């Protein structure tokens, strides 16, 4: 009786309460953006897409939001705490403590303790809002230009405006689906200045350690919004970004302005790196196409590669040896600054996504099958 009295008095509140009770006890699986990465012992054996040094420490990132780090040259690994469980594609440390990791769903993660704990700085929804706002202001600018332009210039500008509208519509459609596009690489100079690049020409810049991000795509000559696959700084200070359709962009002013270089190749370039010499650049990609420049990309020479497997990444060891790694277990080594390479295919034929030179001449590879130790040629240790 008491219950009924309260219910009659409280009316709708009671109704609400009983509806809650009647709801089925099942819930949707939370979005991967809201699902912390599951602690697991399997991370070092699962897909890892990138690895880097944070001081002496090695940090690697991969599928399901895995970030693992090792303080003993890769022998034992600890899993970092990550608030998302999507595939992470790249990691870079600006300082020993401050690092950024990027991946699917347009995620940028930040760690200020050498990779142990990570916080979400940006997700794909925010990234696409940034990009859309930037497109809208580009459109506004262009519309202003058209108003003031001479008649003979107008047609070209109107075409450009149409292109912008088209891109904007695509972006808005994508945004309706959700945070669909991944970031593919990240580079940080220190604890505040950095870039992230990704699918469909995404490039964002921060000057305050990721507090604020700015859409930097309008500053690159990439009207068809091809993927940007990789960004790095080469010896001498220049920044180089490469991507789909042979794109090569160079900035010599710390990223403020970018210049598109003429490309020796029309296919996808998956990676770019310095050789350790001033203004020398190596870039590589689909089917093992590899190119070398000694003048910041103004001219290129083809680096012969008979292996024919796509190359994903590379690293320069302290002694100057250059190692490139790629699909099908490809490990390429150069002792002449990248002019030529010796190819070795690992027996497991598993894709290799990144390489970290260890003390001595050994290598640590990460990729399809997780972490692998090898000798300087990529062979398994005896």
């Amino acid at each position, binding site marked *: 009786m008491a219950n009924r009295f309260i219910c009659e008095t409280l009316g709708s509140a009671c109704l609400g309460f009983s509806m809650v009770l009647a709801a089925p006890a099942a819930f949707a699986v939370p979005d991967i953006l809201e699902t912390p990465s599951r602690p697991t012992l399997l991370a070092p054996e699962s897909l890892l897409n990138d690895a880097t040094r944070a001081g002496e420490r090695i940090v690697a990132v991969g599928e399901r939001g895995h970030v693992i780090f090792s303080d003993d040259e890769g022998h034992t690994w600890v899993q970092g705490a990550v608030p998302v469980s999507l595939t992470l594609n790249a990691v870079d440390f600006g300082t020993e403590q401050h690092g950024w990791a990027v991946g699917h769903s347009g995620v940028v993660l930040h760690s200020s303790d050498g990779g142990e704990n990570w916080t979400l700085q940006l997700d794909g929804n925010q990234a696409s809002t940034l990009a859309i706002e930037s497109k809208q202001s580009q459109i506004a600018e262009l519309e202003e230009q058209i108003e003031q332009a001479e008649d003979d210039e107008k047609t070209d500008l109107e075409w450009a405006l149409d292109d912008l509208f088209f891109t904007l519509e695509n972006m808005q459609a994508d945004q309706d*689906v959700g945070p669909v596009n*991944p970031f593919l690489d990240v580079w940080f100079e220190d604890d505040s200045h950095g870039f992230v690049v990704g699918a469909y020409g995404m490039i964002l810049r921060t000057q305050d350690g990721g507090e604020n991000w700015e859409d930097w795509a309008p500053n690159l000559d990439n009207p068809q919004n091809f993927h940007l696959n990789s960004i790095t700084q080469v010896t001498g200070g220049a920044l180089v970004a490469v991507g789909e359709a042979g794109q090569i962009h160079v900035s010599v002013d710390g990223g403020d302005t970018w210049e598109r270089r003429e490309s020796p190749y029309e296919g996808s370039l998956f990676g770019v790196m310095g050789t350790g010499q001033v203004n020398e650049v190596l870039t590589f990609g689909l089917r093992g196409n590899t190119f070398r420049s000694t003048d910041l990309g103004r001219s290129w020479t083809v680096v012969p590669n008979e292996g024919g497997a796509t190359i994903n990444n590379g690293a320069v060891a302290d002694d100057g040896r250059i190692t490139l790694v790629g699909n099908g277990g490809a490990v390429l080594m150069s002792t002449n600054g990248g002019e030529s390479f010796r190819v070795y295919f690992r027996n497991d034929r598993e894709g290799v996504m990144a390489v970290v030179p260890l003390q001595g001449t050994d290598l640590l590879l990460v990729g399809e099958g997780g972490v692998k130790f090898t000798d300087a040629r990529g062979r398994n240790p005896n």
Partner: protein
Amino acid sequence: MSNPMHDRGEHYLTTPKAEPFLERLIFNNRAPILVAFFILTLFLGYNAVKIQPDASFERMIPLEHPYIVNMLEHRDDLENLGNFVRIAVAVEEGDIFTAEYMETLQQITDEVFYLNGVDRSGLKSLWTSNVRWVEVTEQGFQGGTVIPDGYDGSRESLEQLRQNILRSNEVGRLISDNFRSTIVYAPLYEKNPETGEALDYGEFSRQLEEKIRDKYGAENPNVNIHIVGFAKKVGDLIEGIASIAWFAGITILLTTLLLFWYSRCIAGTLVPVFTSIIAVFWQLGTLKLLGYGLDPYSVLVPFLVFAIGISHGVQIVNAMAVEAGKGFDAITSARLAFRALYIPGMLALISDAFGFLTLVFIEIDVIRDLAIAAGLGVAFVIITNLVLHVLIMSYIGISKGGVRHVQNHGEKQDRKWRVMSYFSHPGVAPISLLIAVIGLGLGLYYKQDLKVGDLDEGAPELRPDSRYNKDNSFIINNYSTSADVLVVMVKTQEEQCTQYNVLRAMDRLQWELQNTPGVQSSASLADVSKMVTKALNEGSWKWYEISRNQTIINASIREAPAGLINTTCDLTPVLVFLEDHKAETLQTVVDRVEEFADNFNNDEHTFLLAAGNAGIEAATNEVIANAKDIMLLLVYSVVSLLCFLTFRSIRAVACIVIPLGLTSILCEAIMAVSGIGIKVATLPVIALGVGIGVDYGIYIYSKLEKFLLEGKTLQDAYYETLRSTGKAVIFTGVTLGLGVVTWIFSPIKFQADMGFLLFFMFLWNMVGAIWLLPALARFLLRPDKMLAKARAAK
């Protein structure tokens, strides 16, 4: 009804000289009864020979378990997912890159293509056009068949083949990691799509042996062939059933020899063998008429029926020889033997039958069939060996040699019986009990390790060293595959099985499971989608993720393997590959899945357990584990109740049942120690062991009570018991043991397990009756009170 005693019911002990009604009925109509039995035997025998082996998969699984209900409900959607054979063609020397090897492989591929039952469109080998290499190029994809165009067996084309294989993504699947074997993968039709005929597994398996293994093994001695798959396993099982016929022959021969050694009378040997075989014919004929076939379990029942028949026949022969020795003619000694034995005999047989029937409560059809077959068989033994046997013997009589054997043997035997009668001595009995208690303690200690389920690797139905299991371990060691698969069915709305949220949920479950001990790997549409999305993005692992864009998902699963999406796209499976099929492994995994389902089942997706061999085993284990205690309780209750109704004394029941309990516990301890789990095959052993084991106790106790009521001391009464029936009881134990011991050599592992355990139970129950029963009697029985009670009854 001339004897007024009958009006108060006949107690065979209090009216030993009476002619019970049954006896008069049978012995006054000997000829008509024999003729009737003859006609019945002709009819049932005719049916018995028509009975067919039948390894029906459905009968071996618990059909009422929710997992199995789910599986059968979605059976059509999952068809062909698990029904395939894999034929690994391995080289002995060198590697696969030789012209000879490739030629043999081509011939085998062609041969498999034309095998009846093979789904030709799904056939895969290096030589089929659906095995391709693919490479990403600037223009998109390029690819071709793994066998290079213009292949001519030259070194160049073999080298090209090697290159293509490395690019093909089939290493570890169709080609072993060491390049020393490749697989011909043949999906099978459950039903022929043209004729609608069901696949004959036995025939298919024979063809694989003849047309593939034998033929090409002989043609190219450098090639070894390994074949695995459900169809092959079932084929081997059916073959195993057939080999049981040999065991039947051996058992009959051994029993006959033993029987002759025992009775030294040709009639006394052949007649019980003959009547026991008739019981078997009746049993098989009735089964056939009831529509049953012979599955790998019920094929064992005739052995039991035969052995039970012989063991009761022996009692009759023994009793007749004793009576004949007193000078009675054939018919009188037959009547006296019948009169003395029909109540304990019927009681023993009825308790056997009830013991078996308790198995009906286990919700697995093969066990129920076994129970029915065994129950029927025992019922027939009552007729054949208590009636037919006695009737035939009443015409023939025990030979003089047989009677002399009983008499001559007497004195030497008597000394032995005298020694054994000390089991009931007040000084010996406590020692016996102490030993029994120690045995009980040890048994209880060791049986803690008793596991549910199958514990061996590979196909548990077959022996670990069987050809099938060797082939299986070859394939497991050389290819990335597991033999133990649990299938979780994911039910969605129609046409929604590929939605992002569904794939995402499956992916989450898979990762949860891959982090569960005992899980090796898993596969689902989610993996296909990630893999193809990666491939569509120029093979870059950075795109190895389920896209949120449904258009991309749809593109990624366009070429998904058959069986991962059903025709209405409302069911998609998650395949979980396990390290083994131990009960704990299965339990851990299904618990995880159920927890996940409880948390995340909703309108979009429902996660259902379970299909796959591991799913079926998980369900079976659960049913077995739940049934075990109920069954033990039932079988002991039934046996105790029957004993109580007969002997009207709880003390008598204790004397008979306690030794059985000790045997049951020791049997479980032996199972634990020798790594035999409680499973479909071994659960019935407990019921059979107790049901049949009680016979000894009944025979011993009924004699012991009789002699006690004659006023003898316990030890004297026991001595007389041993003299009159001890030999028959020991003989019974040995015959029953012989009946099952040949199973140990069966190619079917669970038959061997059953044989081993039943052999132990039959022999040990006999020991328990002869050794422990008198010791218990020393403490439990009150001969003076029994006498007083019997007198009061008069």
